[in-house]
């Protein structure tokens, strides 16, 4: 038997939907096998997960809490990966965005600015922080051709150490220095009430809070979609992603594009950091075992890949994956060992990655290799 893999000249539209859906189905079957082998009933487990993610009282609200940062980091990854700029620094860019927006919230919130302006300033500060942090690998790539994958990855750790340092090892602006608790254990300052982001409460499931960040994420997806499919900038960025040489001959300014795309990607992750502070934590979460353990930045790359870098699909996938992660946190216990959700998530991702082959290539199984006719030669080209 002989397996031949041929590149598709045209990628049919339906495949872009059918393959991810099929991959998830395959993944669920494989994960069911893993569950069965390790002594868990797969159907009961899936039912439990689904209920805990979307159906139980208050579960949708909790899912949104997890899905919102995933949407931001997913969009951040999608923005850069589309141009084949592998910014895997959304993790660190989110931390830096959280640091800068927390500073803005603390300062402006306690100086009597109205909430709307404080929130806007926090978003702007998050954008600035994230974009600045992402510009380090951006500048290095644009001017020294340094591989952005590794530099952006390394900076995640540096950002994490800075975040922890600001609250735990120095009396910085972000650290609470007054009160009894603060003298016993280092804590960060709470945001003043004016700097807490408003949310909308929906009447379903006994009140779901729709965080402002979730709305901003959808807005960002819309802007990103328009930017990439409706503007000259987006077109040039995509050409650059497909063929750097073609783009150069067409007169695309390579350095500017790299700098801009990295900054945009970092800015989106930075808003994610601002939303962490304003929407959910209301303080700078510097504990290495809290925000930093959630690894939203890395999971965002998974979200982006599953959404095939399409902004709307990314938001949808973030919601579903957020549900899965939320269910894992809710159910964790003796019957539901920690790590199970990570395993399922990993299998889904592997299946989606493998399935990508079917979108880009045609797989032919033949008894033996046929002599290459003109048609086959054209298809393989």
């Amino acid at each position, binding site marked *: 038997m002989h397996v031949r893999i041929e590149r598709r000249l045209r990628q049919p539209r339906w495949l872009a939907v059918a393959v991810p859906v099929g991959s998830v189905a395959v993944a669920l079957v494989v994960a069911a096998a893993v569950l069965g082998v390790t002594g868990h009933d797969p159907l009961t487990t899936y039912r439990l997960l689904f209920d805990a993610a979307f159906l139980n009282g208050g579960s949708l609200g909790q899912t949104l809490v997890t899905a919102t940062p995933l949407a931001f980091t997913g969009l951040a990854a999608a923005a850069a990966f589309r141009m084949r700029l592998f910014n895997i620094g959304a993790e660190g860019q989110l931390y830096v965005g959280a640091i800068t927006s927390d500073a803005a919230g603390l300062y402006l919130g306690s100086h009597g600015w109205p909430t709307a302006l404080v929130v806007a300033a926090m978003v702007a500060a998050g954008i600035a922080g994230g974009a600045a942090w992402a510009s380090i690998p951006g500048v*290095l790539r644009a001017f020294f051709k340094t591989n952005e994958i590794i530099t952006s990855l390394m900076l995640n750790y540096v950002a994490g150490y800075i975040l922890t340092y600001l609250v735990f090892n*120095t009396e910085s602006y972000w650290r609470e220095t007054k009160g009894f608790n603060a003298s016993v254990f280092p804590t960060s300052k709470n945001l003043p009430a004016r700097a807490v982001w408003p949310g909308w409460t929906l009447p379903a499931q006994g009140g779901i809070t729709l965080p402002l960040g979730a709305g901003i994420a959808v807005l960002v997806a819309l802007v990103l979609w328009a930017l990439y499919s409706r503007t000259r900038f987006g077109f040039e960025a995509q050409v650059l992603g497909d063929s750097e040489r073609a783009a150069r001959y067409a007169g695309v300014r390579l350095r500017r594009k790299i700098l801009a795309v990295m900054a945009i990607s970092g800015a989106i992750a930075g808003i994610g950091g601002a939303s962490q502070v304003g929407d959910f934590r209301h303080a700078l979460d510097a504990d290495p075992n809290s925000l930093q*353990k959630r690894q939203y930045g890395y999971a965002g790359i998974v979200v982006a890949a599953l959404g095939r870098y399409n902004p709307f699909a990314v938001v949808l996938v973030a919601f579903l994956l957020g549900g899965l992660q939320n269910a894992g946190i809710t159910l964790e216990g003796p019957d539901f*060992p*920690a790590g199970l959700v990570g*395993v399922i998530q990993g299998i889904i991702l592997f299946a989606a*990655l493998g399935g990508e082959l079917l979108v880009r290539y045609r797989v032919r199984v033949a008894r033996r290799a046929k002599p290459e006719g003109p048609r086959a030669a054209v298809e393989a080209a």
Partner: protein
Amino acid sequence: MNNGLAVVVIASGVAYGTPLLYAALGELLAERSGVLNLGVEGMMLVGAVMGFWTVQRLHADTGLTLAAAIGVAAVAGAAMASIHAFLVISLRASQIVSGLALTIFAGAAGLSSYLGNNSNLADQPASHTLGPVFPSAAQRWPVVGPIVFGQNALVYASWLCVALVWLYLRRTRPGLNVRAVGESPAAADAMGIDVVRYRYAHTVVGGAFAGIAGAAFTLAITPQWVDGITGGAGWIAIALVIFAFWRPELCLLGAYFFGALQALAPQLQARGIQLGPTVLWTSSLPYVMTILVLVLVSASGARRRLGAPAALGLPYVREER
């Protein structure tokens, strides 16, 4: 035992550096064949948990149990790496996304955690641990005592591994072939080298090294098991490969240097020295230095002499060369 700060820091730098060294040697082999595997952290964690599981479950004499545990850890790491190898070599998936997927699948919130929690391994002391090999008289010698004679068997074995990898890459035919596959797979293919087989073999062996690196944590450094016990060492190992210009002998130096940096802050703290910013720079220095080295490597001119394998991260598709 009254050793100076420098001796203690170097001695524990060697101990902390050993898992980094194993993981980096494995990653180096994979990268030399052109496969970037960002799943090191995940492979290490699965190796760590499986190694620990073996010592807790196997009731044989210490030497045999530990050898079996290291073997199991290596197999577990290799199994993880083979997923990555299949996805990126046979299915041509993005090496970056696949490696990250491996870390998510296997890592601190994935398979390693599931395996550990499902068999209730947390919060148990290890039944067997790797201890110093040499008699305590030798360990009391000044300076070389703690640094050279106070280490466990994995440390000495790692020196052998460095020598073997160096010899393999520099002095053997398959080693030359790997370098060809990593630099120019099309040329290697034309020479009759089986690119796919070489890439599979080196990625999987690289995973075995990462598994052993994980076992170094649960059997020697902190002989117990908790979620995410490697604490980011896998990422430092990836950095280390670049820092060492893809050379095994420099990996050794780099691993001990990064290991000593890790040991510095706790040692200073133990001596009652106020840390302040020290903790920030000692912990970020490996990452910052790696970035600087990368900039240096990517500057033209230096690139040819020191640079990465030219085909690193690129899938090889015979029809599209």
